[in-house]
Structures are given as C-alpha cells and as structure tokens.
C-alpha cells in the first residue's frame, strides 16, 4: 500500500506531542500518521528498523531563499559558485550544480537528504510570483509556500496613510489569492521605497518620501491586518537598518510595536492530535535576528547586540524569531533590502545587483565569503548562535542561516553541532578571530541544546510559527507522514564528539514523505508528489470591489496589464489553499 509504513523502535522526538526521546513505533497509513496498523495492513506495509536511531518529524525551514527572481539572479551572476559543486544525474534524479545558489532540482534533493520535507521561500515580490512559483514547482521533494513582500507596497502605503485598514486588509487578502502566497513579509518598511530615490530611513518615526508613512505605521498596520484576516503565521519582519552597527535597538523597538496586537490565526484545517496547543500565539515573527542585532556604533567598535533583543524576547511572549546563523564560508547575500546590498557593495567591492520592483518593493544580490580570520565575520558567527542559545524557551526561536545569506542551508548540521556541543564552539573560537570571544558573550555560554530542543528549532516551532503544525512538524495522529530518521543514538550520544552529530544530521538514514521513503543515507530513492500551500482568505465581496477600483486605477503605473498580473493555478504543483476565514 502506497504511503504506508511502520518505523519501529526509534528514539522519537516530537515536541509538539510532548514525546522526548521515548522508544516508540510510528505508523503511517495512506500518507498520514495513525495510531496503529492492523495485522493485514502490516503485511503490505514497509517496515523500517530505527533501533538506536533518532526519529523526528520531517524538517521545516520557515525562512530560506530557494526560488524566484532574486535566487535566479544569484545563479546567473555566480558561475564560480557552480563549477566546483555539482551532482551527476541518476536514473530518477536530475543533475544539478551550485553551492550557495543551487539549481532548483539540486536544492530539493539536498534539503531532502538532511531530512527536511517543508520549506518556505522567504520573499516573493508580487510581480515575481509567477517566476517564483515556476521555480518552486520544479523543486522536488519538498512541500512549499512563499511569503509575499508587502512592506513597501504603494497601494498599502497609501491605504495606511489614509488610515483605511479595511481596504488595506481587502488588498492583502486579494493579493495572497492573486499570487498564491502564504504570509505577509515586511522588509525594511518604508526604507526600500526611499531607496528608489537613493535614500533609506533610519528611525521608526521617519516618514518616507511621497507616501509619508513611517516604518512604525507599516509594521503596526501590517500586524493588525495580519490578525484581522487571521493569516496562519504572524507578520514576518526584516527590520530597518539591517546590517548597520547599532541596528539592534531599532530591531527591539520594532518588536515592541505589535505587542498589544493579539494573535488570531483563523484557519479552517484538520488539526493533528498534538498534546501541546499547535496554534501560534505570537503577533510578530522576526527573521534572521543576527543581521538585525549588530551592536556598537561603527565597524571599529562593532560588537554583538544580540542580548538586547533576546532579553526582550525572553520577557515578552508576542515574538518568535529565526536566527540567521553564519557558519563561515561562501554565501550569497540576497534580500528585498536593496540599500543594504548597496552598503555591502561599498564595503566589499564585490559584484552586486539591485532591482526596483515597480510599485512593490526592491531587491539586491551580492556574493559574500565569511572568513574565520575576519573580526566582523567571527562576531557574526558567535551572534548567530547567541540568538538561539540566549532565548531560554526554544519555542521562541527557529534555526536558519537565512540561506544563502549567512551560508547555505547545507550547513545546518554544522550549526546543530555548535548548538549541542560547547566543545564544538570552543574549538571554533580557537580557529577564528579573537573578536568572536571579545565582542560577544558566546564564549562563556555553556548551554548545550538537547535533541528535543533541536527538534523544536528545526521543525516543531517552524511548523507552529507558520501555522502548519496541524499537519507538519509533528508525528501526532493525523499529521502528514513526513519523518526523518537520523543515525544518532540518542542514549549514547557524546556531544564532545561533535563530528558524529554533523555526520548524523547531514545524511538522514531515511527521509520519509507522505509515508514513502524518498532518501536513504544521502541517496535519492523516490520523487514524491509535492504540495504548494497558500492562504485563501475570505473577504466581503463589496470591500473587495471598492478596493479593486483603486487598484485598477493605479495599475497605470505598472508595466504589465492588470489581466496578466495574477499567478494562475497551473504555475503551482498541487495548489493547496489553506482556507482563512476572516468572516467567521
């Protein structure tokens, strides 16, 4: 029977279901987790012996740049990223190449080999939604969704200036459906629009040119709209001033803005039977905290500002964040924050690209190499780990590299090793610039994450934060049959031997998707069906009609026609709407 499997005797880590390393059998029938299989079903089922191995729900990456115009620009401008890193085709898998910006197929395979089964594209500019979906459709092995970039959108800025939250909400719900995207992404609010005029904004109360809205207006407005509509995930924020020494303060102050807004995710889905409440309660999801947590006032007195943010996160419950770790080595910096890329160009002299996306947003791309010998990069390495280790409750944090900004996602096993092993961190301190220990607090941090905490920051919390924990990030009955089995003996694990942790997480013994084994020890065994999620938000017909009148009259500022704007279903692999009912 397809999608029916028994995974026996593994150490199971399923934090959403409060399972912490117990030896258990996991049964999957027709792609979904079930309590048990009957004797007749067992006869046809595939059986996996996971004795001495670690079993987790399939990995969920809630912030990664894997598809779309920006990623493709990275591919085009980086032939040097490709020629040394490639994979031959196999009877079922395509060939592919690219280390920090892999080709679509390779990206899917590499995530899958690490036991990841769901990945969110971190930034979809509305005009590039078609392109992004076309690439996502071609990324094998993974269920996917994308976040719509709305923080500098002309229509929204106009509505927010006029204080017309209802029309703004109608616009957001129409845009999500139109572009088949999942959540709201807010990048350098008000600043990217100014970049069109060679400027930026540097304070939360600084109004931008023409639209005269402030970052604060936009963060507040989008967070309100997000909860008014009941979108599955919190508003996803890339704060202002990113990458500038001292930016941690504006980041913390940005997090204060949505404090009083109550989370009201309102999705019409079947919930897996988890013991913990699987719905989010946060009203803001800060991304790549490390890049938003620079301390000091210049590159000369640069230091970690992470503690200022994590202190705030520890004492407030409306914030969740991902880390944006820097594992050293090659990276490709790509963001919707065009001016931040220009600043990096001036700093490094590397080749760079910038794009203005008409009435919507912007973006930039630049190759970058993080060196252990470089003082700033070494502090950034320490900061990325601080963002995870300083947050006391793992349910407030998610592990990412903001791939490929801090480094490619293929470095996740290395980051897990640093989180689990103080020795791994101390050994890296030996190799990198002394600023890492002088300008951050990491050297004296002795916390070592447990496998259960690793399961939280790499799947359970990513799923809960994005509102997909009804089916992902857990092995509770009713969840999707996405499982990762790692060759790590949870009872015998010695965190001082961190190389074995890296090896264990690098190539999952088995990656199972929908009850089907798709990779085994790094080899691709099957190419499963994949789903693409998007938020299908119900909205009153007449508010939509009023709003569309405005949109149509302003469409003259676009270079494309209104009818060519939406992304049709055929660009998506198995379009899977998540019903969001604003009316209920």
């Amino acid at each position, binding site marked *: 029977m397809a999608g029916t499997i028994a995974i026996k005797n593994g150490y199971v880590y399923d934090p959403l279901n409060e399972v912490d390393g117990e030896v258990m059998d996991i049964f999957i029938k027709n792609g979904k987790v079930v309590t048990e299989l009957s004797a007749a079903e067992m006869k046809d089922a595939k059986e996996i012996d996971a004795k001495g191995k670690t079993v987790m729900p399939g990995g969920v990456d809630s912030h990664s740049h894997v598809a779309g115009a920006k990623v493709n620009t990275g591919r085009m*401008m*980086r*032939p*040097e*990223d490709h*020629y040394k890193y490639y994979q031959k085709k196999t009877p079922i898998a395509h060939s592919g190449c690219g280390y920090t910006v892999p080709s679509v197929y390779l990206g899917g395979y590499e995530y899958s080999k690490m036991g990841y089964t769901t990945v969110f594209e971190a930034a979809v500019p509305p005009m590039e939604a078609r392109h992004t979906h076309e690439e996502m459709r071609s990324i094998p092995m993974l269920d996917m969704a994308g976040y719509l970039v709305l923080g500098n959108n002309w229509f929204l800025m106009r509505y927010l200036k006029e204080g017309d939250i209802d029309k703004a909400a109608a616009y957001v719900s129409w845009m999500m459906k139109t572009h088949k995207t999942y959540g709201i992404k807010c990048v350098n609010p008000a600043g990217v629009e100014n970049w069109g005029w060679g400027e930026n904004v540097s304070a939360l109360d600084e109004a931008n040119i023409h639209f005269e809205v402030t970052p604060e207006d936009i963060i507040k407005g989008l967070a309100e709209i997000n909860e008014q509509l009941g979108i599955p995930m919190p508003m996803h924020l890339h704060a202002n001033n990113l990458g500038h020494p001292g930016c941690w303060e504006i980041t913390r102050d940005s997090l204060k803005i949505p404090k009083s807004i109550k989370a009201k995710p309102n999705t019409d889905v079947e919930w897996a039977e988890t013991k913990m409440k699987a719905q989010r309660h946060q009203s803001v999801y800060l991304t790549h905290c490390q890049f938003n947590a620079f301390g000091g006032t210049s590159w000369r007195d640069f230091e970690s500002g992470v503690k200022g943010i994590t202190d705030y996160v520890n004492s407030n419950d409306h914030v969740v964040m991902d880390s944006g770790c820097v594992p050293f080595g090659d990276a490709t910096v790509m963001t919707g924050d065009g001016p931040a890329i220009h600043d990096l*160009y*001036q700093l490094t*002299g*590397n*080749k760079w690209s910038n794009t203005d996306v008409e009435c919507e947003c912007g973006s930039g791309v630049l190759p970058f190499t993080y060196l252990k010998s470089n003082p700033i990069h070494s502090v950034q390495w320490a900061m990325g780990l601080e963002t995870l280790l300083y947050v006391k409750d793992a349910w407030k944090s998610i592990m990412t590299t903001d791939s490929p900004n801090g480094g490619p996602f293929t470095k996740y096993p290395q980051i897990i090793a640093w989180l689990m092993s103080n020795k791994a961190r101390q050994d890296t301190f030996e190799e990198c610039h002394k600023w890492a220990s002088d300008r951050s607090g990491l050297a004296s941090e002795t916390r070592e994450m447990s496998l259960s905490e690793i399961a939280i920051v790499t799947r359970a919390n990513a799923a809960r934060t994005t509102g997909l924990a009804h089916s992902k990030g857990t092995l509770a009955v009713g969840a999707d049959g996405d499982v990762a089995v790692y060759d790590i003996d949870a009872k015998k694990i010695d965190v001082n031997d961190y190389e074995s942790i890296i090896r264990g997480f690098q190539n999952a013994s088995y990656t199972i998707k929908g009850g089907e084994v798709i990779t085994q020890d790094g080899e691709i065994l099957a190419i499963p069906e994949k789903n693409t999620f998007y938020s299908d938000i119900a909205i009153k017909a007449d508010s939509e009609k009023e709003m569309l009148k405005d949109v149509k009259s302003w469409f003259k500022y676009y270079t494309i026609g209104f009818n060519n704007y939406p992304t049709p279903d055929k660009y998506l692999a198995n379009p899977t709407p998540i019903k969001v009912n604003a009316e209920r």
Partner: protein
Amino acid sequence: MILMAEVILKPIGNFDLTVEAEAITPDNFAGKTAVEIGEILIWQAPAQAKLSEFFSVEGNGGSSAEDTTITIDGDVPRVKRIGQEMTAGKIIIKGSTGMHVGNTMAGGEIIVEGNAESWPGMEMKGGLLHIKGDTLDHVGCAYRGSWHGMTGGRIVIDGNAKNQVGGGISGGEIIIGGNVDNFCGIRMNGGLIVVKGNAVRTTAAEMTGGVMVVGGRIEKFSPGFEMEAVECDLKFDDIECAGEFMKFTGDYAIPQKGKGTLYVSYENNECL
C-alpha cells in the same frame, strides 16, 4: 639519484571534438604501466574513451609524481586541461595545446613549446608553467565570475597574450615577453605581473594590491592612478626590468581605494 621515468604520448586519434584531458598529469600516471595509462578514461564531448584511443603510450610512470615526466610528442590544440591540478613532476608539450593547460596546478612544471589557447594556469597555486609561443585570454586568471585568481607559482609566456592576464591574482608571478590586450591585471590584489611589451587599455584596473610592470606602451592609461616617483632598473628577486619607470599607485577609481603599484616605462609613455 632520482630516476626520472618518461611517458611519451603521441597523438594518433581523432580530435575533431575537443578532448578533456585533466587525467594527463604526473600524479595520475605515477605507479602505472604504459598499458594502464592507456586504459585511463577521458571525455570527448559526451562520451568517455580510453586514452589509448587518442594517444600511443610509450614508457611507464615513475614511482611518484615527482619522478614522472610526460612528453606529448606533437600538436594537441584540441586537447584541454593537460596538467590540471598537478602537484609535482613535469609535462613537456612539444607543440601547441588547447585551453586550460595547467589549470589550478599546485606544483611541478609544464613546458609548452608551441602556443596555448585561453586559460593557461587558471587559479594556479604553485609550480612553473612556461609557454614558449603565444597564448590567448585569461592567463593565470580567476574562473568566470570569481576574482580569486592565481595565488602562487610562476607563469612565463615568451610570446603575446590577450585579455585578462592575471585577473584577480593575489600571489605568484606572471611574465609576458610580448604584448597584452585589455584588462591585464584587472582586480589584482597581490603578486607580480611583468609585461615586457605593450598593453591596450584598462591595465591594472581596480587593482588593490600587488605590483605590475609594463615595459612597453599603454595605449589608453587607466584614470584612477596617481604618480608617485620615477625609479630605475627594477628588480623583484630574480626578475629584472631594466630602464626608467614611472611609479603609480591605485586604483583610486573604486571604493576600496587600492594600494597597488603600477610601473610604466618612462621612455615608451612620455605622454603620461
């Protein structure tokens, strides 16, 4: 006494489609008999074939790469990547060769008695690559898209080279006996480039370190350089450049405000 083993390859095959011969290195031939060497697979376009289909093989490899000399007895302008990644030993090509000769080589010696096509010594790390004839673009340069070029070793071209000599070089030496075209030493940040003949334009553009010497005339001088002094008879270890030179620093046209040095023949560039 070191006994050098010599393997002689004579081109006999059909080279209508170019052949990717990164397998031809002393490292790869060492410890193999002539027959075993003939069995090595190389790519020609989409198909793999035995080395012996393209070359007759005479002589066995030495016990190590260091003890192995490979002589290619003929013209092989359609054979690419000879000596790629070699670390020791010697290759003598008695005619002309194709692209990418001595790619990323780290040691040993390659002598090309004829011409070489583009990319000789790409991203080279060590050793000596001597081309007695002319070559084309990207001598000792970084791969496309990268600015991490040659880091060590020496490339000597007795004849002319064309564009992007030493692009992104950060160590080692390139000595061009003849002329170069455009972008010679672009983005260099270390190492030494000596051009005995003329250069066309964008010479040492965006340099941030290293030393470049042009003994002939630069047709269009880059705008971001400032003259510091006039010096006579330059000497860089065993490399000597006789005559009077104007010493410039630069390239100041980029945000990094480079600290490279560009010597230009006084006699041939009086207009500067």
